[in-house]
């Protein structure tokens, strides 16, 4: 197993190399540069800045320089925020994005799990249709619509929660729900399907025949089997929640990594774009690895070589 993990980690290097190279050249191919602005800079001032960031060098040399820096773990200075390095901004933003992501996953599991169990137990009943309609709604409504609606209701209308910002648990609720709803909907459908499959099986009938309480039958005996598809979905979902919070972070003014991703691309903040791309890539690679390893544990049919 350890050998397998090491081999996979070694395999990250070429993948990252390709990602960095592609991103680097695509970024530089895009029209405009980091120091184009409404108020054009005098030529000499522009030349001074470009010299400072080595942008006056031929592209291949900038590329080699960047590869060398990345290999050492240095993602360079941010062009947009010259007081800070990309590493610093990412390390400040990541714990925030992680907190938000975990809370959103919690929302997804709690809401989706409960809805899925209910729907699975009352198949084709009103509750089933109701929860599944909500699930459909959750999958279909984009978070840039849901977020502002939640704000209108819970912050402006009822005054229970703050509109935006970061700093207390009250700031976490609306963004977590906004981000988690999409995944909750998925979890609900998966749980329902799992529940339907398990509930008809012999060991459940046995459990009931032994006279166990219905709650025990469901939670102790049926649920573990029913949520197996959910567990396999968690890996990609975690990665997606972490890398997919761009819109939610912007709407709710949350100081995570997502805030930098779009902004830096639009601003042609080369180092920041590449930095976030590298960071997200590593994150996705690691999560994929974790999922594959977990598979091996959970499902004896999967063997790791």
């Amino acid at each position, binding site marked *: 197993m350890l050998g397998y993990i090491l081999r996979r980690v070694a395999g990250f290097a070429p993948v990252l190399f390709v990602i960095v190279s592609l991103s680097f050249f695509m970024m530089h191919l895009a029209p405009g540069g980091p120091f184009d602005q409404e108020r054009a*800079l*005098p030529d000499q001032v522009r030349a*001074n800045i*470009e*010299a400072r960031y080595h942008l006056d060098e031929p592209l291949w040399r900038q590329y080699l320089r960047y590869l060398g820096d990345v290999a050492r773990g240095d993602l360079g200075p941010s062009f947009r925020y*010259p007081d800070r390095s990309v590493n610093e901004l990412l390390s400040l933003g990541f714990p925030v994005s992680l907190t938000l992501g975990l809370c959103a996953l919690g929302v997804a599991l709690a809401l989706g799990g409960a809805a899925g169990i209910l729907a699975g137990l009352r198949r084709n009943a009103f509750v089933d249709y109701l929860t599944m309609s909500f699930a459909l709604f959750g999958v279909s409504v984009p978070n840039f619509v849901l977020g502002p609606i939640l704000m209108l209701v819970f912050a402006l209308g009822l005054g229970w929660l703050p509109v935006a910002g970061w700093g207390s648990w009250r700031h976490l609720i609306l963004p977590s729900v906004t981000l988690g709803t999409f995944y909750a909907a998925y979890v609900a459908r998966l749980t329902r399907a799992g529940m339907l499959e398990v509930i008809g099986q012999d060991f459940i009938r046995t459990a009931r025949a032994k006279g166990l309480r219905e709650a025990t039958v469901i939670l102790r005996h049926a649920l573990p089997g029913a949520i197996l598809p959910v567990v396999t979905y968690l890996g990609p979902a975690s990665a997606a929640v972490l890398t997919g919070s761009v819109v939610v972070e*912007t*709407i709710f003014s949350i100081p995570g990594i997502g805030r930098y991703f779009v902004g830096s691309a639009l601003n042609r903040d080369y180092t920041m774009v590449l930095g976030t791309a590298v960071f997200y890539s590593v994150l996705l690679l690691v999560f994929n690895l974790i999922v594959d390893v977990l598979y091996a544990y959970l499902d004896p049919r999967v063997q790791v070589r």
Partner: protein
Amino acid sequence: MAMRARDWIVTLTVLVAVSTGGPFLTPGAEAQVFRINNMVEPESLDPGVVTGVPEHRILSNLFEGLTTTDPKDLSPRPGMAASWTVSKDGLVYTFKLRNARWTDGKPVTAHDFVYAWERVLNPKMGAKYAQQLFYVKNGEDYNKGRITDFSQVGVKALNDSSLRVTLRCPTAYFLDLTSFYTLYPVPRWAIEAHGKDWVKPGKIVSNGPFRLVSWVPQRELVLEKNPQHWDAGRVKLQRVVFLPTDDVNTAYKQFLTGESDWVPQVPTSQIDAARSRPESYVTPYLGTYYIRFNVTKPPVNDVRVRKALSVAVDRESLTKFVTKAGEIPTSAFVPAGMRGYEGVKSLGFDMAAAKKLLTEAGYQDGKGFPKVELLYNTNELHRVVTQAVQQMWKENLGIHVDLVNVEWKVYLARQNSLDYQISRAGWIGDYVDPNTFLDLWVTGGGNNQTGWSNERYDDLIGQAACRIVNPKDRMRALQEAEKILVVDDLPIMPLFTYVNKGMLGRRVKGWYPNILDMHPLKYISLGR
């Protein structure tokens, strides 16, 4: 000893109040905390590095230049300089510094200014706003590396408390410039000790009426009153919180729930609802929204076509029904309200004249008018404005113009390389003088980007910049230049003067509307 039930309730209430912040705290403690929606994360806190308005809102309170600005009419007031004298020819300014201190207790000296200005002009620094110091004698040459001896540049510390500045040309608005962040003093010892980290909390040394408490990127930046400041007696606010909310809809909602006291923008889609509220304010801004013509490309290389396009747009309707925030329709480029500047009477909406001009240019009723594109960058306001202009041209002239929407950097690159026919644009002045609008259009100017060139125009701008000392004559020269720009040649067609449209909490006092939307915090207080 067990707590009694009442104690428990009190304790719990306090805990809840503390953990939830905001509304439960006692009003007394929160009374002088001013919360500003600053709309973006400041790019830096280094006065030599920054270029933006959001940064100005912070830095103009954290640091202080030779002069400060009057909160009502923005005229220069004493700052670090207690007084100054100006030579007869308007070239030499001698500033007498007051007895002021940095936040670490060191005195603010004339040498701190010399160090700061050298730093900005030094080519190695790559300061984006170095041109703010090109007014100083030899400043530009030093920045361009033509001279390397800084003692030749026109700034000299005569002693610790006297600073002598020699200008290249008599500059009427130089005392306005000295209140601008690029010209602030900076603490050499702190910069040398910490490098680029010198602006971080705990390391920063500043000299303004407020000092930095905390700064978490994309979350908030907090200033508090600096009790050591020379004018601390005037300062009422205890704390100021800057929120970097990017999303203008969110920022607006934060204002409505009381999470902020001032938001300097209102979403275009909410403008009607916002204006019906008593907290809403709309004031003229030192900025012009206009359309650029690329005069090197047909059909807009023909001045008759440009004129026809300009007089075919009904700017009154545009501002009344499309932009709707109270923008001021204009076909002049310099906004009204400049001290001592009369402005020009420019072309108005005239359908008959438009048709006639177009016919003269060979396109009767728009027949045979070539394919033309109008370029704009992604933005709700620009979309609706360009659509309205497109519609007016179609109805009034019978010509069709395609709208081309590109993202910001592509838009800038295409304008810069003259890869467009017509584009929307905007210009915000740096200081209150017509020159900040008119010197754009000199031949080859970095912001001209129309391919337009006019010898007489260049000459007039050159005269106003340096050769005319009498203020009245100078304004007349600028006025003649503007007439060439917007009446005779029209490389551009202005549409309206921008307005500041924002929301201000009703308990905010000492906040005065002005043309730059600048509100020095030392004059602001919060009432009941």
